[in-house]
C-alpha cells in the first residue's frame, strides 16, 4: 500500500506534469477521476514522460524513444482499408485512473466497480476463473490470482508490474517476437505501450482454467496501447482469453495492441479473443507467436465490433513437429471494415497448420480475409489446410479474399480453398415453411455458418457471441 506522503508526492508530481503542458484539457466521457493526464498528441517529450511516470529503467526509455522515431519515419500501410480518419494529434496516449494496481475487490473505486459489474467480472471469478485481470483505461486496476496458481509459480500480472518485478525475464523476451520496427503500429505501441498482461507459465505446468483479461476503453479519444507478453515454458499448457467491450463515442478512437507469445518445446497455448469495440474504434493489432519443437499454438479470433479492424494473428512454426491453428470469425455491418486473416510461416521440419476463416458481411460492411502461408526451404513435409468462407447478406456488402501462398519447400503439401456465397432461398423457404419468421430463419442460418468457430469458444463466450450475431443480423 501507498503511504500518505508518497501519495502526496505523486499528486504534486502530477500537477507539475500538467502545468508543463499549456493546452491541457479534460476530455472525459464518464466521471472517472483520472489522476494523471498527458495532453493529446505525441512527441518525444511525451514518450519520455510516459516512461518517467512509469519509473522505467533506462533501456526501456531508450527503447520507447527509438520506437517513436521509427513510428514517425514509417509510412502508413499501403494495403487494406483507408486509415485517413485517424488523427494522431487528437489522441491521449497515456491516462491512468488509479495510482496502483489493486488486488482486493473492495479497494476498487465504486464508479469503476459499477462498470465492471455490468461486464460481469466478479461473476466470472466466482465461476472459478483462475485469475482476473481487468483493464480500465490504461492500466490493470483489478488483478487477482488464485493462490493455487501462484503456488505453481505462474506469473499473471499487469505488464507494467512485470517489468518492475521480473526485469530480467522481461528484458529477455520483450520485443523479440514483434520488434518495434515491424510495422508502423507496432512502432507506435512500442513507444507508448501501457497496460496488458504479463504471463509466465513454468516448466510442465498445466493451467487448467483459462486466464482472462477484460479490456475497456472509457475516455474519449483515448488510445489503448496494450501490450501482452506470454511465455509458456517447456511442457506447459495455457488458455488465455481476451474479451473486449466498449461504449459508443462520437469521436474516433485508436486501439493498437501488440501481443507476443513464446511457446516453448512441448508447450500448448491457446489465445482467444472476442473483440467488440464500439463502432468508432480503429483496431490495428499486431499479434504473433513463435512455436518451438513439438509446441502447439492456437489463435481463436472473433471480430464483431470496431470501425476498422486490421488484424492478422501470425504463427511462426520455428521448431520441428510444431503445430499451428488459426480460427477466425469476422462480422461486418453498417460501414464496418473487418480486414482480418492470419499468417503461418513453416520453418521447422514436419510442421502442420490449419486455418479456418469465416466472414459475414451486411449493409455496407466489408469483411475480408487476408492471409499469408509460407514454407521456407528449411521446412520439410510441411502440411497446411486452409479454408475461408464468406457469407454476403445484403447487396451493398463486400467481401474480398486475398490469400498469399508462397512455397519453397518441395516436400510441402498445401491445400487452400475459399468460397463466397449468399443465403440460399431454398434454405430460407424450408425454415419459413416450418413456421420461423424470416428474421429468425436468417439468424439461424448465420449461426449455423458461424458455428464451427463459435462452438470452440468457452461456454459463456459462445452464448455471448451467439446472441451478438443474432442482434447483428436483425
Amino acid at each position: 500500500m501507498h503511504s500518505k506522503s508518497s501519495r502526496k508526492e505523486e499528486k504534486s508530481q502530477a500537477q507539475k506534469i500538467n502545468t508543463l503542458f499549456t493546452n491541457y484539457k479534460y476530455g472525459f466521457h464518464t466521471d472517472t477521476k483520472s489522476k494523471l493526464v498527458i495532453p493529446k498528441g505525441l512527441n518525444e517529450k511525451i514518450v519520455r514522460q510516459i516512461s518517467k511516470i512509469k519509473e522505467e529503467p533506462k533501456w526501456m526509455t531508450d527503447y520507447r524513444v527509438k520506437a517513436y522515431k521509427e513510428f514517425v519515419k514509417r509510412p502508413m500501410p499501403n494495403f487494406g482499408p483507408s486509415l485517413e480518419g485517424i488523427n494522431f494529434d487528437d489522441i491521449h496516449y497515456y491516462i491512468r485512473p488509479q495510482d496502483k494496481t489493486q488486488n482486493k475487490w473492495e479497494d476498487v473505486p465504486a464508479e469503476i466497480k459499477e462498470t465492471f459489474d455490468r461486464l460481469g467480472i466478479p461473476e466470472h471469478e466466482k465461476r472459478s476463473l483462475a485469475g482476473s485481470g481487468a483493464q480500465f483505461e490504461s492500466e490493470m486496476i483489478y488483478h487477482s490470482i488464485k493462490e493455487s496458481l501462484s503456488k505453481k509459480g505462474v506469473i499473471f500480472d499487469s505488464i507494467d508490474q512485470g517489468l518492475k518485478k521480473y526485469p530480467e525475464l522481461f528484458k529477455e523476451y520483450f520485443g523479440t517476437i514483434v520488434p518495434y520496427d515491424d510495422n508502423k503500429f507496432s512502432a507506435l505501441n512500442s513507444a507508448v505501450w501501457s497496460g496488458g498482461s504479463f504471463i509466465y507459465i513454468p516448466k510442465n505446468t498445466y493451467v487448467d482454467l483459462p486466464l482472462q483479461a477484460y479490456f475497456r476503453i472509457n475516455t474519449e479519444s483515448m488510445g489503448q496501447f496494450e501490450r501482452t507478453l506470454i511465455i509458456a515454458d517447456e511442457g506447459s499448457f495455457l488458455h488465455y482469453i481476451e474479451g473486449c467491450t466498449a461504449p459508443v463515442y462520437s469521436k474516433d478512437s485508436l486501439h493498437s495492441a501488440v501481443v507476443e507469445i513464446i511457446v516453448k518445446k512441448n508447450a500448448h497455448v491457446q489465445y482467444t479473443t472476442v473483440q467488440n469495440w464500439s463502432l468508432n474504434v480503429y483496431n490495428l493489432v499486431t499479434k504473433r507467436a513463435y512455436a518451438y519443437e513439438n509446441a502447439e499454438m492456437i489463435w481463436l479470433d472473433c471480430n464483431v465490433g470496431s470501425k476498422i479492424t486490421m488484424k492478422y494473428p501470425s504463427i511462426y512454426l520455428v521448431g520441428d513437429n510444431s503445430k499451428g491453428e488459426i480460427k477466425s470469425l469476422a462480422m461486418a455491418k453498417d460501414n464496418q471494415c473487418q480486414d482480418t486473416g492470419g499468417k503461418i510461416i513453416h520453418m521447422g521440419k514436419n510442421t502442420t497448420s490449419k486455418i479456418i476463416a469465416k466472414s459475414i458481411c451486411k449493409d455496407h460492411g466489408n469483411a475480408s480475409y487476408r492471409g499469408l502461408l509460407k514454407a521456407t526451404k528449411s521446412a520439410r513435409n510441411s502440411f497446411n489446410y486452409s479454408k475461408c468462407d464468406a457469407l454476403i447478406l445484403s447487396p451493398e456488402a463486400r467481401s474480398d479474399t486475398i490469400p498469399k501462398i508462397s512455397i519453397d519447400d518441395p516436400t510441402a503439401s498445401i491445400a487452400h480453398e475459399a468460397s463466397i456465397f449468399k443465403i440460399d432461398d431454398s434454405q430460407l423457404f424450408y425454415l419459413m415453411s416450418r413456421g420461423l419468421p424470416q428474421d429468425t430463419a436468417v439468424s439461424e442460418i448465420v449461426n449455423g455458418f458461424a458455428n464451427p468457430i463459435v462452438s470452440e469458444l468457452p461456454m459463456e463466450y459462445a452464448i455471448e457471441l451467439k446472441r451478438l450475431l443474432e442482434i447483428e443480423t436483425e
Partner: protein
Amino acid sequence: MTKNFSLIITPEEAKKLFLHKSEPIIVKLDKPDTLAEILVMIKGEKDQKYDFAITVIHSAPHTKSRIYVRSVLEGSSSVNFAGTARINEEADFSDTDLSHHTLLLSENSKTNTLPAMEIISNTAKGNHAATIGRINEEILFYIESRGINELQAKKLIAKNFLKADISKLETLKK
C-alpha cells in the same frame, strides 16, 4: 447464350507468353449470359521463371468465369501467379471459379500463388482453390508395380496432372 470465350494455353505457349514478367491477362465480362474459360498448363524446367497474372472482371448479370491453372515444376523453376476474380455490383447471379494446382517434382522448385476474390454482389457465387504437393508415393508404387519404371511412371503422373482440368471445360463439350 451469346459469345463465349475460351482460351487454352499449352505448356509450349506458356513458355512463350509467361517466361519472365508478362503483361496481365484481363478478361472483362460485360455482356450478360457469357462464359469465359481459361486453362493454363505450365511445365517448368531448369531455371525457368514463370510470372503472370489473370484478372476476370464481371460487370454483367449471369456471367460465369472459370480459370484453371496447373503447373508441374522441375529443376529450379518457379511460378508466380496472381489470379483475381472481381464480381461488380451490377453482375448479379454471376459465378466464378479459380484454381491453381502445383506439383513440385524437384528440390529447388518454388511457387507463389495469390488467388484473390473481390465480391461486391450478394447474389454472386465465388470459389477458389489452390493446392501444392508432390507425387503421391502410393500412386507411384501402384504404377511401378504394373511394370513401368519410376521415371516413366513420374512422367505419366505429371502428364495427367497437367491435363486433369481439360475435361471440365464446358466450351469443349458442345
